[in-house]
C-alpha cells in the first residue's frame, strides 16, 4: 500500500467544535515552581552585572575571551584560566522585531531583540538582549550599541540589571 491509496486516519477537531460541547475535554493546570542555581561561572557574571560590569572568562589555550563566561572552555575542555572585565558596548550581530509574547499573544509595542557581540570578547561572542529608543528601521547588522544600566540600588544580579541597549 502506498500513498496512492489516499487514506490516512485521524479525526480533526475544528476550533468551533472544540469550544462547543461536542467533545469531552479534561482541563487542569499544574503550576511548577523552580529555583535554579546560577552555577560557578554565571554567579560571578551576575555579581559583575550588579556592580555594573560585564565579565568574561579567558582560556589561555585557545586564547578566547568567553562571553557569556563559563567555568570551563567547551572547545579545549579544560578549566577557564582567568576572569576579565570586557566593555559594556558592542555591535549588533543579528536582530529581530518581535510582535509577540512568549505565549504567542500580541505585544502592545514591538520589541527589538538582538544578539549583541560584546567589545572585548572574542569575535562573534555575545549575548541576547533588547534594544530600545530607536526605530526598528534604523537598526542594522553591525550597528554599535551600549548597555544602559539600571541604577546601582536597583541592580540585583540579573541579566535585567542591564535595562536595555541603545544605539550610539
Amino acid at each position: 500500500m502506498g500513498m496512492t491509496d489516499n487514506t490516512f486516519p485521524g479525526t480533526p477537531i475544528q476550533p468551533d467544535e472544540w469550544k462547543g460541547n461536542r467533545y469531552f475535554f479534561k482541563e487542569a493546570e499544574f503550576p511548577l515552581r523552580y529555583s535554579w542555581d546560577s552555577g560557578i561561572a554565571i554567579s560571578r557574571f551576575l555579581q559583575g552585572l550588579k556592580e555594573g560590569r560585564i565579565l568574561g572568562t579567558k582560556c589561555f589555550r585557545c586564547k578566547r575571551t568567553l562571553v557569556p563566561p563559563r567555568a570551563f572552555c567547551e572547545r579545549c575542555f579544560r578549566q577557564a584560566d582567568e576572569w576579565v572585565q570586557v566593555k559594556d558596548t558592542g555591535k549588533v550581530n543579528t536582530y529581530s522585531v518581535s510582535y509577540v509574547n512568549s505565549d504567542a499573544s500580541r505585544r502592545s509595542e514591538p520589541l527589538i531583540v538582538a544578539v549583541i557581540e560584546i567589545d572585548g570578547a572574542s569575535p562573534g561572542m555575545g549575548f541576547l538582549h533588547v534594544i530600545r529608543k530607536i526605530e526598528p528601521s534604523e537598526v542594522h547588522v553591525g550597528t554599535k550599541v551600549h548597555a544602559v544600566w539600571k541604577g546601582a540600588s536597583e541592580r540585583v544580579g540579573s541579566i535585567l540589571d542591564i535595562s536595555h541597549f541603545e544605539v550610539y
Partner: protein
Amino acid sequence: MRRVAVVGAGMTLFRHRMLETGKEMAFEASRQALDSAGLERKDVDSVVLGSAPDAFDGVHMKGEYLTDGAGAFNKPYTRVYVGGGTGVFIPIAAWWQVASGMADIVLAVGEEKMSPLQPHPQYAFWSIFDHTLERPLGVTLLWIFALEMRRYMHAYSVSEEDIALVAVKNKGNAMDHPAAQLPARITVEDVLKSEPICWPVKRLDVSPTSDGAAAVILASEDVARKITDDPVWITGVGWNVDTTYWTNRELAYPEYLEKAARMAYKMAGVENPRREIDVAEVYDPFDYKELHHMEGLLLAGKGEAPKLTKEGVTGKDGDLPVNPSGGLLGVGNPIAAAGMMKVAEIFWQLRGEAGRRQVKKPAKRGLAQAWGDLMQVGTVVVMER
C-alpha cells in the same frame, strides 16, 4: 554492519487538533506501517519511538505513556529525543539496532500531540532557553528563528522575496498530499503581506503547530527481501550537535549539519551530493530553513540555495526536487512525526508510490533531514532503491 531496509510506512492526518490521543495516533500510524509491510506486532523485535517535549502533552514519561500505541510492551523499547531533530533521529536509532544485528525488524514511530497546551503550544518552548540569562528577557522560540533568518539574509544578501518562494512552493506541493494541514496556492506577495510575528518572520513564513504521527519499519536485508521485492535501503546516517552557546556561533551557516551530512554521505559513498541526490526532504519549519539546510547539506553552495529555488531546480519537476511532500510548511509540523513524515515521503518517492506528488526525475537516491534544539542539531538519512 548489516544492510538495513525500510519496508513499510504509515502516517495519520496532520491537523491543528485531533480527537485521537497521542497513543491512538501512534497506533494508527504504526498499524498502517505494519499493514503496508504485511506484518503484525509479533513480528517486531524492537520499537523505537520519538516525541518532543513532554510539556506539550502535560504527560511526563511520555515515552512510556505511548508504549501501547507503538506496539512496544514486552519488547525492547527506546524513546529518543534530540528536539526537532528527533523525527530523523528515530530511524537512525532503529538503524543501529538492525545494522548491529540486535534486531531483524524494528518499528520506528514518531508522535506529537501539541494541541493540549494552552493558550498556545508555542509557550512550551520558553523553557528551552537559559533560565538565568535568556528567559528573563521574555524570549519566544520565534526569536531564534528570526535572529537566524536575519543573519542568513545579511551574510548572503538574501531577500524576503527569495525566502517567500519556499513557502509558495511547499504549500503548493502540499495540495497533493492527502494528509496535509495547510496546503495552499499562495503568492510571494501573500507571504510578504502576511502579519509580521518576529520580523523578518511573518505569518506565512512559519509552519503550523500540529497533532499527528508517522511510522516506518526497518528490516535486515534477508528479512526485508522476504517482506517485499521493493525494499528501500538506508545507506547513510549522520547526526551532529553544536554548542548550546548559540549567541557565540555564526548563525548564517549550520556547520553541525554539514558534519552530519558528511557523515551520512561518506557512509553512502556520495561524493557530490548536488549531483547524486535525486530528491530531498529538508527540514522546513520556516521557509528560510529549507535554504539554510540545503546549504548545510551541501546541496547548494553557501548563499546559493535561493538561486536554485528561483530557477525552479527545487520544484517537483526540477533537477533537485526539495520537499515534494509539501514539507512542514504545507503538511504540518507535529515535531517528531514531521521528521518521520519526511522519511516516509522519501520511501514513497523512491518506490514510485507518491501519487500526484511523484517527482518527475527518476529518483534512485533520496535524503531526509531534520534539525532542532537551540539551532544546533542535524540529523540525516540517505536512502536508496
